[in-house]
């Protein structure tokens, strides 16, 4: 695949071009975007959510492609067509993990779609771990990467705490207020040393969230796993977290660091199984050890504070799928998805929503294909698989979610309290 036929994002464009990125992780992106900005990239995370996004997606990519591709591409084309941006001075940014899933084609599909819309001159930046080429317009530097690791860890922590406060807050809006305040604060610290003084920040964050007045009503905890875009993006999953909170549940969503660590882990697995990546595995190893260290530090802080449930570290997580699925299953979310379901069950979260685009190829195996085995070993597991699609209706999804919620944590017992004295139907 030659890159030459497409416009490149050049060094000069750093100064002249605005970079648009799709929505996926609202909390994380709010912290990450300013890092990019501080390194001279004029980045903007898209916030167009309406039905035009899906229509543009339908128009511009094959209808059988997975839903995330349709949304991401639709969102970008919709933005470019909105007139808000000078398309001669706009570039797009999209993440790319590679691998055998059709998702690795997003960038090519995006480029094709741009050409078809007469926007072929808009450069697309592939955000991947090999982007270290200094001559190209977009390149990671080590300090930038380190900052990003910090940002991700902060994001994971904030998401984790926010989800544990929101369903219980006594004054509506408190949790969001604290969350916003901390995002703002972290962004403010970015240029100075404050940002990397994590211990201090963690303590303060924990203190602030713990100070939110919360009820002690027991609510069912519901884990969300799935294809990464569907799992996190409110645009993709019809605001699943919000729905669960409104239905009186506590969403449990694991951090995005796990996914990145999973990608690194696969590099060494690939070497073990196939002798590939002889050299790539060393930088991957370094970066992954660093991220694990950061993640552990965060987990430790939450644990020590003692008020909130701390996430499980990747080191533990990665072994949880053992006996269920081989480590060689590396396409899509691979063995990680199976491990995440098991991790939830081990931490007492038996209710799980498994999100995926309709017809997701890896999930036939790693999600739907593993549920039987998981339930055999964990009869209390209450897992529901939800498919997302341009026309899969909300009502259909909600009805299935409601069934899962009705069964959450012994919900079945409800019928036992009926004060019935008749066991036969008389008609």
């Amino acid at each position, binding site marked *: *695949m030659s890159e030459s036929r497409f416009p490149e994002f050049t060094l000069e464009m750093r100064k002249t071009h605005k970079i648009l990125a799709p929505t996926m992780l609202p909390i994380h992106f709010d912290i990450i975007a300013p890092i990019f900005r501080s390194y001279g990239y004029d980045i903007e995370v898209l916030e167009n959510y309406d039905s035009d996004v899906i229509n543009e997606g339908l*128009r511009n990519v094959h209808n059988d492609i997975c839903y995330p591709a349709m949304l991401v591409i639709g969102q970008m084309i919709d933005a470019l067509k909105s007139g808000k941006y000078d398309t001669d001075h706009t570039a797009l940014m999209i993440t790319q993990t590679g691998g055998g899933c059709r998702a690795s084609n997003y960038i090519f599909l995006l480029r094709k779609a741009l050409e078809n819309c007469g926007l072929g001159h808009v450069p697309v930046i592939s955000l991947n771990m090999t982007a270290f080429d200094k001559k190209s317009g977009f390149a990671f530097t080590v300090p930038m990467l380190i900052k990003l690791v910090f940002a991700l860890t902060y994001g994971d922590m904030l998401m984790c705490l926010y989800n544990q406060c929101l369903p219980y807050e006594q004054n509506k809006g408190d949790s969001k207020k604290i969350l916003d305040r901390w995002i703002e604060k972290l962004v403010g610290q970015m240029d100075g040393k404050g940002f990397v003084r994590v211990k201090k920040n963690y303590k303060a964050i924990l203190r602030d969230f713990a100070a939110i007045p919360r009820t002690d009503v027991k609510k069912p905890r519901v884990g969300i796993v799935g294809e990464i875009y569907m799992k996190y993006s409110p645009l993709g999953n019809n605001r699943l977290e919000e729905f669960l909170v409104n239905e009186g549940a506590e969403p449990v969503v694991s951090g995005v660091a796990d996914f990145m660590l999973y990608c690194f882990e696969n590099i060494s697995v690939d070497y073990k*199984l*196939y002798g590939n990546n002889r050299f790539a595995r060393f930088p991957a190893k370094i970066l992954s050890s660093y991220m694990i260290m950061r993640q552990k530090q965060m987990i430790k802080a939450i644990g020590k504070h003692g008020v909130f449930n701390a996430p499980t570290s990747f080191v533990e997580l990665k072994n949880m799928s053992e006996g269920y699925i*081989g480590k060689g*299953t590396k396409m899509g979310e691979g063995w990680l998805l199976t491990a995440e379901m098991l991790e939830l069950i081990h931490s007492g979260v038996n209710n799980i929503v498994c999100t995926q685009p309709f017809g997701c190829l890896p999930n036939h195996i790693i999600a739907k*294909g593993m549920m039987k085995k998981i339930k055999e070993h964990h009869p209390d597991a209450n897992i529901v698989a939800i498919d997302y699609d341009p*026309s899969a209706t909300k009502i259909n999804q909600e009805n299935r979610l409601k*069934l899962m919620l009705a069964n959450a944590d012994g919900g079945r017992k409800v019928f036992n309290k009926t004060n019935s004295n008749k066991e036969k139907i008389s008609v």
Partner: protein
Amino acid sequence: MYKLGIDIGSTTLKIVVMDGDDNIIYKSYERHLSKVRELCLKKINQIKDILADKEVKVAITGSAGLGVAQLSGIDFVQEVFATTGAVGRYYPMTDVVIELGGEDAKIVFLKGTVEERMNSTCAGGTGAFIDQMASLLNVTADELDELGLKHNAIYPIASRCGVFAKTDIQPLINQGAQKENIAASVFQAVVDQTIAGLAQGTPIRGNVLFLGGPLAFLKCLRQRFMATLGLDEEHAHFPDIAEYFVALGAAVYADTCDKVYDYDEILALLSKENTENKINSLPPLFANREEYDHFMARHSMNDVPGEDISLYRGDAYLGIDAGSTTTKLCLISEEKKILYSFYRSNLGSPIDIIKAELKKIYELCGNRIRIVSSAVTGYGEELLKNAFGIDHGIVETVAHYTAAKHFNPNADFIIDIGGQDIKCFQIRDGAVSSVMLNEACSSGCGSFIETFAKSLGYNAADFAEIANFAPNPVDLGTRCTVFMNSSVKQAQKNGATVGDISAGLAVSVVKNAIYKVIRAKNADELGDNIVVQGGTFLNNAVLRSFERLIGKEVIRPGIAGLMGAYGAALYARSSKGDTTLITAEEISNFTHTSKATRCGLCNNRCSLTINEFSGGRKFISGNRCERPLGGGKAKDLPNLYKFKSDKLLSYKGVEGKRGKIGIPLVLNMYENLPFWHEFFTKLGFEVVISGASGRDVYAKGQHTIPSDTVCYPAKLTHGHILTLVESGVKHIFYPCMSYNFDEGISDKCFNCPVVAYYPETIKGNMDLEDTTLIYPYIYLNDKKLFIKKIYKILREYFPDITKKEICYGAECAYAKYAEYKEEIFAEGDRAIAFAKETGAKTIVLAGRPYHTDGEINHGIDRLASSLGFVVISEDAIRPIDRPDLAVLNQWTYHARMYNAARFIADMDNAELIQLVSFGCGIDAVTGDEVRDILRGKGKLYTQIKIDEINNLGAVKIRIRSLEAAMNDKMRR
């Protein structure tokens, strides 16, 4: 304390009232025709006497009940949850509950931990599906039931979703199969769907409780369930209250709620209207009356002149279009004026209709008019041609273009939306340059609107009319019927009117055509002289939406619905000869019988329908080859699919010192069998291969498939594994393979996720008894590494294996695989040379190695071969080089398709058809790219989606259209 349970499903509203002693004192069941709130209030009004002055607890359930509950603030209980609760209370001995509703199907396993399942979003085979099928046969659901009870044969009908099943049923109707047998087959499909889609590996045994409307009313459905599950009267329970049971569950649940209401409160709460804005609404189709009038005036200009049949004297030409749901007929004069025309739903029996029409025409013609030539087109072409001795059978594309050309000689784009098909042709330089047809999965066409209209209590014309001025057309998306049903459900929940829904459906049919079938990026791509036709465009809402979406004015001939027939008549006019058309005398003595049978000429055992007509004419359908027709031997043209299939099926095990090892002939094994067979044979194993697939193989493993949206080739794997387990092998070898061989034509050499890791699914979902599944992660690209790894792996199971043996086996295996590949290339060379020498037309059927499986390709290769094509597979074309593509080219199998497309692009008289398994997400990428490669070189792109359905009729139309287009191209 009284308990009121309200169950509002997708199609019906059920109410149960229990008194203080839990006696059911009232129950009702009624279709709500989308008027949920209205009916609900009406019902509550009716039970005023029962509830007045009582304390009442209330709960609402059901998919359409959710909205009512939210609006009224009354407690909601999820319907499966409610059902399970009530079952536990009233039928505690139950092991399994099967509940079929309007659009949902549910199964609850009560043994052990309670396990509740609902159909996924892609599975409509339920009440609404039965209604749809009944209306297709022009009977009511009850009549369908009556018919089904009298069946003597069952046809395989795809059970996955309604649209697929319809694709199976339509040809059966058009081929003259008995309604009784079709009816029973419909019910069987529902049963299969329930087992395949819902049970997913858990056996349905013990006491089974059947609930829900369809199971309460339809005896044949019950019969099919009992027969399939092997249940006797003692274990199959059909309670009298089956259709109200969910409402009863809600009433039982209501008892646990805290709130207590009196009658007036309930009435007041349920009276609340939805005042919220409907979120996804579109602008009205017409802003005002003036706009509408202008639109109507413009389109009335394309009417066709007629001539009075009672006055005309001279020759006349007959054209018939036997479409999927409608039959069209046209008699024209020498001046191409219409003497007589006919357009009607074929009511499941096209033969009877044409018989009656011909009779009438002959009477009208008297001695003045002589029919000198006749032609027929459409699904029922062959049946009618044989039945009535019609002179010409022509492919639909030709018929439609002939007609369109008559209206606008410059026509450069034709789109025809018929009952079940969407057909689009692009015309360049006076010839069809590309043909686009809808896939089986997106046939949201005319019959779909009609069926919907019916289900909402309207006829098609009125339904179309109310769309025009609907204020807020609903945005319904573009997916298949099943999804559309849920979209409509959602719209109903939001309080959309029937007009809004009708308008929304019109827009969605058009979007479906433009985005999914044509895949147009912009209107200019279509052309400047667009002719729209087909019965669906007579719906002005559809026409309006189409013009609006493409932003151009189009021509809709006044006879939009008759274009196929008119085109056929024009064709007949231009090809006169001695007519063989049935005479006036013959028609009055015309008889027709049909019977179902199985062909015994080969192992495929196709179900045949044999039609016999008076005059000794006979028509056999359902066959996949020419053999049962007698005489007409398939010409011996090179066919790579047959070559590969014969080759792979010829591998046999050789008795050896290490005993038997099983290999399933599925997915990647269609590529690697020669390798593994050699490897294990050399190691002293007797290799047991699971053999050819068949529907029976699928059925065998169906209940263990965890994901009903995975592709058919993967689904078949389950049956193959069970075949091996039954054969008693101790070990099955079926490796996981992320990577395939690097053939130098792709950047990476991945397998798709399903091919790569399906053994994990097998391991996780199948009970293999005493057989061990060996499913290591294998990498074949590096021989040294392979030897090292496989030695370690096999030692675990067979400790006596030596490294030397492994080395030797591996050497032989690599050599054997290379030899096999070369054989295929050589045969490919031979086929290409043959085609060049003889001038035979060539088709590259570009699929995957496993598309060689006859059960997966449904004999498309043989069909093409019988139509006179040389058939080449994508892997028989030698690698050219690593191409520069606009997509990520990183899958070995898919790279071969690009390679084949590039090769064929430079070959004369050759075209490519891409075979795509339904559910193959990767082909969403390859499809567009292959198309672009071909179009860049002026070639046609044809894609055929295949699944468990076996609808060769539709495939035949496509291959013949392709052939017609190739002929056109040659002539130029």
